[in-house]
C-alpha cells in the first residue's frame, strides 16, 4: 500500500510538473496574472507530492519491506536504523528520487520566497524548472522505479554495500545534490531571461543568492566526500581524479566562475551574455555528471552498451536541455546589450581573469574525463587519463589563479591601480617570501617546489587579511575605530576574506600531505613496535568482536611519543556476513591539524598482520579550507544586500525605508 501510494504520488507530481511547464508560459504570453500564478501553486504542490513519495520510500526501507525490490536489494533487517534511512539514496533508484526531491524543493523555495520577482520572470523560471522536473520524473517512472514489487517476497534483504554503511552516506549525497541541483535555479533564471529577452543587474541580484547557496552545498559536499573517501577506502588518498569526482568538480569550477561573473553583472551591469552562458553551462555540467554517474558508462563503455535504457534516456535529457538551452542562447543572446565598460586592470578585469582560468580548468577536467570514452567509442582504442595527467595540467592553471586572487578585491571597479594594489600587498609578499625561506631551510635538500607552494598559500591567506586590514584602516587609525569599521563592513566582504583565505589553507594541507607524508608498511605481530614520524606504535593485540550486521577483527595500538603515552588507536577489519564483503575501518588520531592513520591488511598464517601506518602532516587543512570557503559563502549569503533578493524582509526593509522618507 505504501509503495503504491509513493508511486502514485510521483505520477501526480509528474502531472503537476507538466501543468507547470505549459500554463505559466501561456499566461506570460497572454499577460494573464492568474495563469502565471498557477506556477506558484503547482510548484508547492509538486514539492508536497514528491516529499510524500520520498517519505514512502524511507518508510519502506525503515520497516524493511522486502516485497519491494529496491528495499530487498539494498537493505537488511539487522542494519542499524541510520543506515536503513541513508540506504534509501545509496542506490540508483533511490538517489534519483532524492535528486528530483531536491529539484522540487528548490522549485518550492522559489515559489515560496520569490514574491519580489517580477511575475512573468517567476512564471518563466518555474516553468523551466518544471521542464527539467518532468524529464526526470519520466526517467524515474519509466526506467528506475524504486517502488517495484517482487512477486514472491523474500524473507531477508541483500544488505547495503558495506562501504556505504557509514555516516558519510548520510551527509555526502544530499549535500552534493543540493549543490548539483541547486544550479538548476541559475539555469532556469538564465533560460527565463533568454525567453523574456530581457536581463539586467536586478536579474543578477536575484540569481546570486541561489547560485551562492548551491555553491556552498556543493563545496561542502565535495569536501565531505573527499574526507569520506580518505578515511573509508583505507589507503589515505583524498582525491583520485576519478571520473565520478570530476563529475562534481566540473560544476564546482563553473559555478565558482559563475559566482564571480554574476558579481560583475550585479555591480557593473557588464558580462551579461557571459553570465547567462555560464549559468547554462554550470547546470549542463551537473546534468552531465548525473549522466556519467547514473548511466553506467564509467564502469565500461560496454556495460553501457549492454543495458542502454537508462543511459540513453539520460543522454536524451542531456541533448534536449543542453542543446535546447544553447540554441536558445545562440538565438537570443546577441539581442542582449552589453553594458559597463572597464579597463583591463580593474576589479572587473580581475574577475574576468578568474573566469578565464576557472573555465579553462573546467575544460581540462572535461576533456580529461570524456576523452578516453570518446576515443574508445570512435576508434576502439583504449587510453587512460588519470591523476598524473590532471596534476600536470591543473597546476599551471591554478598557480596564476592563486597569484591573482589577492589582487582582485584590492582593485577598484572600472579602472584599478595595479601598482597601488601591489603596494598594499607588500606585507603578504614579505610573509610569503619568509615562509618560502623558512620552509626551504627546514626541509633543506628535500622537495624544491613544495616551499614555493607554501609561499603561494601564505600569500593568498595574507592577501585576504591585507584586504581586510586595508578596509578597516588597521594601524592607521586608532584600533577602536578600526574595530568599529570591521563591524560595519558588509558581510559579503567578510565572506570574500574567509573564502579566499580558505583557498590558501587548503593549499597548505594539500602540499604538506603530498610532500611530507611518512608511511610505514610492514607485517606486525603483537608487541611489535612501528616507528613513524617520531611516534612509536605498539601492537597490543588482535581481538574479534561482533557488530550488528558484521564481525570484525580489532587491532589495538598504543601510541607513544618520547616515551609518553599519547593515545590508543583501534583500526579494524569488518566482515559483512550477508554480502560476504569486508571493509577496512582505518583508525585516525588527530594531533592539531595532522593525523596518524592506521589501516589493516590481511593476516598471514603465522599470526602477523599487514599494517600500513601513515603520518599525514597538516592533512586536516585540506578540508578546513573548503569549510572556510563555505563559511565565507554563508556570510555573504546573510549579507542584507543579498537578502533583498529574498522576499519578506526585503519588502519590510523597503517599506521601512519609504516610511523613513
Amino acid at each position: 500500500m505504501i509503495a503504491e501510494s509513493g508511486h502514485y504520488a510521483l505520477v501526480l507530481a509528474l502531472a503537476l510538473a507538466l501543468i507547470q511547464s505549459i500554463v505559466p508560459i501561456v499566461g506570460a504570453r497572454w499577460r494573464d496574472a492568474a495563469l502565471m500564478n498557477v506556477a506558484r501553486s503547482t510548484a508547492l504542490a509538486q514539492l508536497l507530492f514528491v516529499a510524500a513519495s520520498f517519505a514512502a520510500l524511507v518508510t519502506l526501507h525503515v520497516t524493511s519491506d522486502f516485497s519491494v525490490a529496491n528495499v530487498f536489494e539494498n537493505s537488511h533487517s539487522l542494519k542499524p536504523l541510520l543506515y536503513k534511512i541513508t540506504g534509501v539514496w545509496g542506490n540508483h533508484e533511490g538517489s534519483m528520487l532524492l535528486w528530483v526531491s531536491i529539484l522540487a524543493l528548490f522549485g518550492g523555495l522559489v515559489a515560496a520566497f520569490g514574491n519580489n520577482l517580477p511575475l512573468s520572470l517567476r512564471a518563466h523560471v518555474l516553468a523551466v524548472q518544471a521542464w527539467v522536473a518532468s524529464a526526470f520524473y519520466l526517467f524515474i517512472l519509466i526506467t528506475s522505479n524504486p517502488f517495484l514489487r517482487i512477486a514472491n517476497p523474500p524473507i531477508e534483504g541483500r544488505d547495503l554495500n558495506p562501504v556505504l554503511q557509514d555516516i558519510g552516506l548520510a551527509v555526502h549525497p544530499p549535500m552534493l545534490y543540493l549543490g548539483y541541483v541547486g544550479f538548476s535555479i541559475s539555469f532556469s533564471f538564465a533560460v527565463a531571461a533568454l525567453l523574456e529577452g530581457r536581463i539586467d543587474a536586478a536579474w543578477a541580484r536575484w540569481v546570486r543568492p541561489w547560485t551562492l547557496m548551491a555553491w556552498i552545498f556543493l563545496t561542502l559536499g565535495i569536501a565531505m566526500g573527499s574526507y569520506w573517501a580518505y578515511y573509508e577506502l583505507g589507503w589515505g588518498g583524498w582525491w583520485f581524479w576519478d571520473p565520478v569526482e570530476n563529475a562534481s568538480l566540473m560544476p564546482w569550477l563553473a559555478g565558482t566562475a559563475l559566482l564571480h561573473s554574476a558579481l560583475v553583472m550585479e555591480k557593473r551591469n557588464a558580462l551579461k551574455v557571459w553570465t547567462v552562458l555560464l549559468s547554462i553551462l554550470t547546470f549542463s555540467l551537473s546534468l552531465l555528471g548525473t549522466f556519467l554517474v547514473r548511466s553506467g558508462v564509467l564502469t565500461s563503455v560496454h556495460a553501457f552498451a549492454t543495458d542502454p535504457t537508462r543511459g540513453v534516456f539520460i543522454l536524451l535529457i542531456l541533448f534536449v536541455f543542453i542543446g535546447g538551452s544553447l540554441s536558445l542562447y545562440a538565438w537570443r543572446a546577441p539581442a542582449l546589450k552589453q553594458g559597463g565598460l572597464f579597463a583591463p586592470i580593474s576589479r572587473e578585469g580581475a574577475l574576468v581573469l578568474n573566469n578565464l582560468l576557472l573555465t579553462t580548468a573546467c575544460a581540462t577536467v572535461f576533456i580529461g574525463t570524456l576523452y578516453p570514452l570518446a576515443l574508445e567509442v570512435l576508434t576502439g582504442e583504449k587510453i587512460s587519463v588519470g591523476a598524473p595527467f590532471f596534476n600536470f595540467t591543473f597546476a599551471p592553471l591554478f598557480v596564476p589563479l592563486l597569484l591573482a586572487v589577492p589582487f582582485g578585491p584590492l582593485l577598484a571597479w572600472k579602472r584599478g591601480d595595479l601598482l597601488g594594489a601591489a603596494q598594499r600587498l607588500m606585507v603578504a609578499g614579505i610573509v610569503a617570501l619568509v615562509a618560502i625561506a623558512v620552509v626551504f631551510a627546514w626541509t633543506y635538500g628535500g622537495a624544491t617546489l613544495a616551499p614555493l607552494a607554501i609561499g603561494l598559500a601564505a600569500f593568498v591567506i595574507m592577501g585576504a587579511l591585507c584586504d581586510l586590514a586595508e578596509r578597516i584602516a588597521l594601524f592607521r587609525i586608532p584600533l577602536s575605530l578600526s574595530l568599529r569599521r570591521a563591524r560595519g563592513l558588509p558581510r559579503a566582504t567578510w565572506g570574500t576574506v574567509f573564502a579566499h583565505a580558505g583557498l590558501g589553507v587548503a593549499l597548505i594541507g594539500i602540499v604538506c600531505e603530498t610532500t611530507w607524508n611518512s608511511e610505514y608498511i610492514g607485517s606486525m605481530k603483537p608487541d611489535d613496535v612501528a616507528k613513524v614520524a617520531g611516534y612509536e606504535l605498539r601492537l597490543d593485540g588482535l581481538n574479534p568482536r561482533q557488530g550488528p550486521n558484521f564481525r570484525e577483527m580489532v587491532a589495538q595500538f598504543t601510541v607513544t611519543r618520547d616515551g609518553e603515552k599519547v593515545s590508543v588507536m583501534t583500526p579494524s577489519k569488518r566482515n559483512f556476513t550477508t554480502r560476504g564483503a569486508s571493509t577496512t575501518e582505518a583508525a585516525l588520531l588527530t594531533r592539531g591539524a595532522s593525523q596518524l592513520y592506521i589501516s589493516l591488511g590481511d593476516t598471514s598464517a603465522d599470526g602477523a598482520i599487514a599494517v600500513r601506518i601513515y603520518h599525514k602532516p597538516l592533512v586536516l587543512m585540506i578540508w578546513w579550507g573548503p569549510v572556510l570557503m563555505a563559511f565565507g559563502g554563508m556570510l555573504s549569503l546573510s549579507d542584507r544586500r543579498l537578502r533583498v533578493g529574498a522576499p519578506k524582509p526585503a519588502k519590510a526593509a523597503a517599506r521601512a525605508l519609504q516610511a523613513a522618507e
Partner: protein
Amino acid sequence: MMRSRTLAAAALAATLMLGAMPARAVLPDEIMADPAKEARARELSKELRCMVCQNQSIDDSEAPLARDLRLLVRERISAGDSDRQVIDFLVARYGEFVLLKPRLNEHTLVLWLTPPLALLLGGLALWRLGRRRANPAAGGGDSTPGLTSDEEARLERLLAAESAPDKPL
C-alpha cells in the same frame, strides 16, 4: 570484438574481487631492500594503471593484477632498467592503456592541446573584445534598454536599501 569482451569480463571480475578482497595496496613483502629503488618504484607505480580497475594506479589498487605489475616494476628496476625503460617495457607489453598520463601522439593530440588552446583562445577573444569595446567607434554603450519606469523606481529602491558602503578604500 573478442578483445573488448574479454576486457569487459575482466573488469567485471575485478569489480567482484574488489568487493571481496580488502588486501591493501603495496604489501610488506613487495618492498625492495634499497630505499632509493623502492622510492623510484613507488613513483613509477603512481603513473601506471591497474588495467582491471576503475581509474586506479597500481600503487593504490588492491587487485592481484596490480600486485603482479608492482612486482614486475620492481623486477625491472632490480635488473637495472631506467625509469623510461621500465615504462617502455610495460607499454610494449600492455599497450598505452597502462599509462595514466597518456603520451602525446596523434590520438591524444586533442586531449593535450585542449587546455592550452582553451586558455589561449579565451585570452585572445577577451583581448579582441577589449580592443573593440575600448574603441568608441565600434559602439557598445553603457545603457540598458528595456526597463520600464516602474522597474527603474523599484531598482532605485532596492539599491537604496544597500546602506553599507562597498568600495575598496
